[in-house]
């Protein structure tokens, strides 16, 4: 293999896949990238066996072939190189020479044929997303995904599509966020699609979506899902497991509606949460006609109390909520106001925004 490639193009390609590479795994080759050159492109591949990605980049190919290189080292080197053309050549015993300007590196590689192949994926998209919309959908639900590795089904987002509407749902068992948006669907009429998208694939996807106006195709084949955008692909194993029945926990009879200024609530809550119990982050919301009191007491740290006005008429209600869960929501929603839909102190609190009835976030209370 012998290629010339722009430094910026290579840097971009190598940078995007760093998150997938396992620097200290049991298989040394998984800490490497696979580079293959053919015709006028170079293809960069990375995988951790759960997910894999490949991207094609324009290059001047003098001799086709393939190499593997340590992902981290390659990235560190390319990052420091001047903005000139990079020359890559495969030597004997899988060694690689890299030249750029006056710099020259000789790097050891592993046999490219040992690099695990990417699973087969379908390039026929079932759904076609506008990248802006997909990004918004992930951003508004991703925070509620469970970090608990033992709860596999909750370690990702549920994607459901029916007709020309698609929704993403995330939950960690204490809170839930869901969003629905229009989508171009190529699925058969009446078919309902339902997939679990792993967390890691989603965060890699977010990195790929820096390009604002692109279309992302979503496809499924056997045990694998793929997101395809032009010459870039992310393939991921599907999560095994059953996502809980989220529909039954979306409250329909939370008739107490309190509308608060989003900014005001965010800042007040951040202040009061400073003295909340470190672990539970419990803050008491006391809502009565026209006013909301945020209270944190009963901890060794001291007490905090803040009152703010809000639109509310109805019976007094007091509910304990994890401040972090609420702030996560306030952080991703848009608009000047947020509405808390309550039933009582024992039932979940539903957060909604005025101009978007397709976004819902639910937080379970803490028992006082």
């Amino acid at each position, binding site marked *: 293999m012998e290629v010339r490639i722009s430094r910026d193009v290579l840097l971009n390609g190598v940078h995007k896949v760093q998150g997938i590479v396992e620097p200290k795994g049991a298989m040394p080759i998984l800490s490497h990238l696979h580079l293959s050159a053919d015709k006028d492109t170079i293809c960069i591949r990375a995988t951790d066996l759960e997910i894999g990605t490949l991207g094609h980049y324009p290059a001047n190919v003098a001799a086709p072939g393939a190499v593997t290189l340590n992902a981290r080292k390659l990235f560190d080197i390319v990052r420091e190189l001047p903005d000139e053309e990079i020359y890559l050549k495969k030597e004997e015993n899988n060694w690689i020479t890299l030249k750029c300007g006056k710099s020259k590196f000789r790097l050891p590689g592993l046999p490219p044929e040992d690099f695990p192949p990417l699973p087969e994926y379908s390039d026929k998209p079932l759904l076609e997303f506008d990248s802006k919309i997909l990004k918004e959908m992930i951003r508004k639900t991703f925070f509620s995904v469970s970090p608990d590795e033992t709860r596999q089904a909750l370690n990702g987002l549920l994607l459901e599509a029916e007709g020309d509407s698609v929704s993403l749902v995330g939950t960690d068992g204490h809170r839930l966020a869901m969003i629905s948006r229009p989508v171009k669907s190529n699925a058969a009429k009446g078919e309902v699609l339902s997939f679990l998208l792993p967390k890691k694939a989603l965060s890699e996807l977010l990195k790929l979506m820096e390009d604002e106006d692109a279309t992302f195709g979503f496809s499924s084949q056997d045990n694998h899902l793929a997101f395809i955008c032009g010459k870039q692909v992310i393939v991921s194993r599907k999560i095994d497991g059953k996502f809980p029945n989220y529909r039954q926990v979306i409250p329909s009879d939370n008739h107490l509606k309190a509308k608060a200024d989003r900014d005001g609530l965010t800042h007040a809550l951040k202040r009061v949460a400073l003295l909340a119990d470190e672990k539970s982050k419990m803050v008491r919301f006391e809502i009565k006609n026209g006013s909301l009191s945020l209270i944190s007491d009963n901890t060794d740290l001291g007490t905090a109390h803040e009152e703010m006005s809000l639109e509310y008429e109805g019976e007094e209600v007091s509910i304990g909520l*994890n401040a972090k869960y609420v702030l996560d929501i306030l952080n991703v929603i848009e608009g000047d106001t947020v509405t808390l839909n309550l039933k009582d102190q024992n039932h*979940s609190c539903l957060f909604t925004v005025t101009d978007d009835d397709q976004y819902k976030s639910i937080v379970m209370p803490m028992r006082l």
Partner: protein
Amino acid sequence: MSHRGQAKFYLAGKKLSRLNKGLGLRNILHVDMDAFFVSVEEVLDPSLKGKPVIVGGSPEGRGVVAAASYAVRRYGVHSAMPIAKAKRLCPHAIFLSGSHRRYSEYSVKVFEILKRYSPLVEPISLDEAFVDLTGCERLHGPVLVSAEKICNEIREVLGLNASIGIASNKLLAKIASAYCKPNGMLWIAPGMEQRFLAPLPIRRVPGIGPKGGAELQRMGVKSVGDLARLPLELLEEVYGKWGVSLYRKARGISDSPVISETEDPRSISRETTLETDSTDPLFLESALSYLTEKAAGQLRENKLFARTVTLKLRYSDFKTVTRSKTLEMPTAEDHMLFKTCAGLFRKLFTRQMQVRLIGIAFTSLTAHPYRQEELFDDKGGQCWDGLYQGIDRIRHKYGFKSILRGTSRYSA
């Protein structure tokens, strides 16, 4: 001068109570609030006064009575009874869901008053405490006067009634307060202990449960006086350690000190030295399960929740190892605590070493659990609450071993 100052400090501190203990001159109060939860509700809403009030959730629910006013007790309603049954017995009762937060606020106020009388205040639960007034006579007057002052102050400041038992040790003070409830005060004067105890039924003695009581009854021991007539050798031979403690209790002897609440959260722990050293993980886990149940029961009895679980193993060579894990949420539920203990055990006990002693400790205790509710647990945490309230109720009535986890089967 400095020498005298030091001597004074020495006498006012713990050493004095130890000194007096030797002489049998301690003045111990057992302060027990009357129908505490209900009384707090009455203070907050005076219109409830004298009415049949039950604290413990909605009458349609499946909870249990947490507290009942004396007006309801007449109908046979008592705490720990299922709400539905209470509703049948007294349909016109006022049911309140109650608020642990409010009760702990009032409890804090009660303890503030008690601490004004002595630095040695040992909390037993939200509504119960021992106060050691030994050596406070010159400050507050004779012990009866101080006790009355405490009673009056609690009534005037908080509007709540307390019953106080006064005696020369904790055992007698507790028996006395139970005897004079509600709104009473009883002093067992030094020298009168035996005469007071003798006619009492044995079940009045703390530590004699339903099972022990029944066994003693079979032997013809009905009153504390009967028990006091049994010689030490016989009791020790039949009941071992427990027999020795019975011998002492029947005579009103107890020298356990009043330990004031420290700033640090306390810990609750249980350990057992195995009869024979073991390498059998099944047996060891069973022992662990039993210890967990015991300690968790104690947590719930004290209305506390633990956040940290520590496992302790001592091998046959006396090498001792401990491992801890801190939970995301404080809990007092057996299944959560045992899951954590067992997890620690399985991680730690990997080599086939003979285990001599096994123990657990719960630390980072809190009375304010802030438990996060689950989205997909249909019945919610209240379901577990109901289960453990039920278990505790059964144990209260039929003894601890009347109901156990399956995993405890080899150890019970």
